């Protein structure tokens, strides 16, 4: 069945504007930045630039970037892990144990913060974690004379803030996956003699894996490129690759180096997606 000319114009007219917009604001800019990452001078400098590999070489030759990259990846892993450890049981309880209006209410309460400003939520943690903040005051009142707790500007603060920001993603994706599991499968496992643990490990966990993986992807990607949260909650400690890229564009104005670092970050993200892709793909066929 070949589409008529009229249909073809309709398709073009309907999709054209959106894709022209995307081309001009996403795909052309990415191409421009790829070109820029091979230039030796920033476009802010009025002299003509020539091609070079120096920006990528700088990343691999300077020992300075490796700790930044490692901390960015570690941060992504820690945040994803904690989101899973906290979020999965919550999603499970919500999908399989809580019913009716309670479920609706709790579900709404979990997704609600999601719609408020992310920056504001990160900022709000500074008031909780600082010395003489709520955590500190609470501990002091229960154990007078306990050492002051000042978590602000530390690694844990960054992790806590990011887990708080991204936890709803994990709960949401796991909840959707868990809810789709037919209860009769679980009952079948139980009646065939499997105990609670075996049923969970052999039936529930594998079936909800796509939910876990898509949650992990939704969390890991933004966290690895984060710069605002580590800056507000981590201060000067724990510089991430993202923070360095931001500085190349806003402070030191070394755009070509920043562009190269951005593409290295993107390469890391692509590798991770490559690893997760088979699982994500299965999800498409599973439903």
């Amino acid at each position, binding site marked *: 069945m070949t589409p008529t000319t009229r249909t073809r114009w309709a398709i073009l007219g309907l999709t054209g504007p959106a894709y022209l917009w995307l081309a001009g604001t996403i795909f052309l800019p990415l191409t421009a930045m790829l070109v820029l990452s091979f230039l030796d001078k920033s476009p802010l400098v009025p002299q003509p630039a020539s091609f070079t590999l120096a920006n990528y070489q700088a990343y691999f030759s300077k020992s300075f970037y490796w700790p930044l990259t490692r901390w960015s990846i570690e941060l992504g892993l820690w945040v994803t892990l904690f989101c899973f450890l906290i979020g999965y049981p919550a999603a499970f309880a919500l999908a399989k144990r809580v019913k009716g209006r309670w479920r609706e209410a709790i579900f709404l309460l979990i997704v609600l913060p999601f719609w408020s400003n992310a920056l504001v939520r990160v900022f709000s943690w500074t008031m909780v974690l600082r010395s003489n903040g709520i955590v500190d005051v609470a501990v002091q009142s229960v154990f007078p004379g306990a050492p002051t707790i000042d978590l602000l500007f530390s690694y844990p603060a960054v992790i806590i803030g990011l887990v708080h920001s991204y936890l709803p993603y994990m709960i949401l994706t796991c909840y959707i996956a868990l809810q789709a599991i037919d209860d009769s499968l679980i009952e079948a496992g139980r009646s065939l003699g499997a105990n609670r643990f075996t049923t969970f490990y052999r039936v529930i966990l594998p079936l909800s894996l796509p939910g876990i993986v898509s949650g992990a992807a939704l969390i890991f990607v933004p966290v*690895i490129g984060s710069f*605002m949260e580590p800056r507000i909650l981590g201060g000067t400690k724990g510089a991430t690759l993202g923070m360095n890229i931001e500085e190349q564009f806003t402070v030191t104005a070394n755009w070509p180096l920043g562009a190269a670092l951005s593409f290295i970050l993107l390469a890391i993200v692509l590798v991770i997606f490559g690893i997760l892709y088979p699982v994500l793909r299965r999800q498409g066929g599973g439903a």
Partner: protein
Amino acid sequence: MRRLLDGGIRFYLILVLVFLYLPILVMALLAFNKSPLYGLPFEFDLVWFDALANNKRLLTAGWNSVWIALANTLIATSLGTMAAVAFGRYSFRGKTLLQALLFPPIAIPWLVIGTAMLVFFFWSGIGRGLHSILLGHVALSLPYVIFVVGARLNDYPKALEEAAATLGATPWQVFRRVSVPILAPGVVAASLFAFAVSFDQFVISYFLAPPGVTTLPVEIYTSIRKGFTPEINAISTIIIAVSMGLMLIVARFYRFGGERSGNE
């Protein structure tokens, strides 16, 4: 045993909710506290809301954010709905490719997209400013709109339109009486998404805002980095209260969380 387990589950869910809401509540509380240095004990006062009312920078930034979010909602929802209708109604060559092209704006870290826009807009002469921030926000919102409207159109009831046409409806009547009612819920949900994406967007705006022109998140970030000002607590509390209030209203119309209690 069973009751004990249920009690434990409820307790755990409450703990999770406490974790999610603790910082927000603390911030809201401190917005009404008199001491500027977050000093305790708590003393109720509206000084920071008064200060906010006189903070021109913050208010201008706030209005910028609202206008950009509204313009973004209008543009992204119309363009996105058009594309979603094309995907729902027609099958054509290159459709899968076009749909796959919607993933990069979602899957690439905003930092990379934001800096790439900065570079390209500089090179092409578009420059920085509210107009380029709007360009960027629409790009980020489009994929969400297309997915949300598209989810509704997964099996586009083409037959209904054809039936209406054979029964003598004019194309306009078909559009008005058949297509629009089918599309409406998806479009409303998508426009809410688009508004939230834009109003919340910090990273892209941060790179595209020239000195002196800001949106609310950018202005808040700058204030935080300069030093803590309780006015930020006040405006943040307002933002959170308004956005959560809006969502609660929406939730009354759209049921989140799956089925009702009926099928227990």
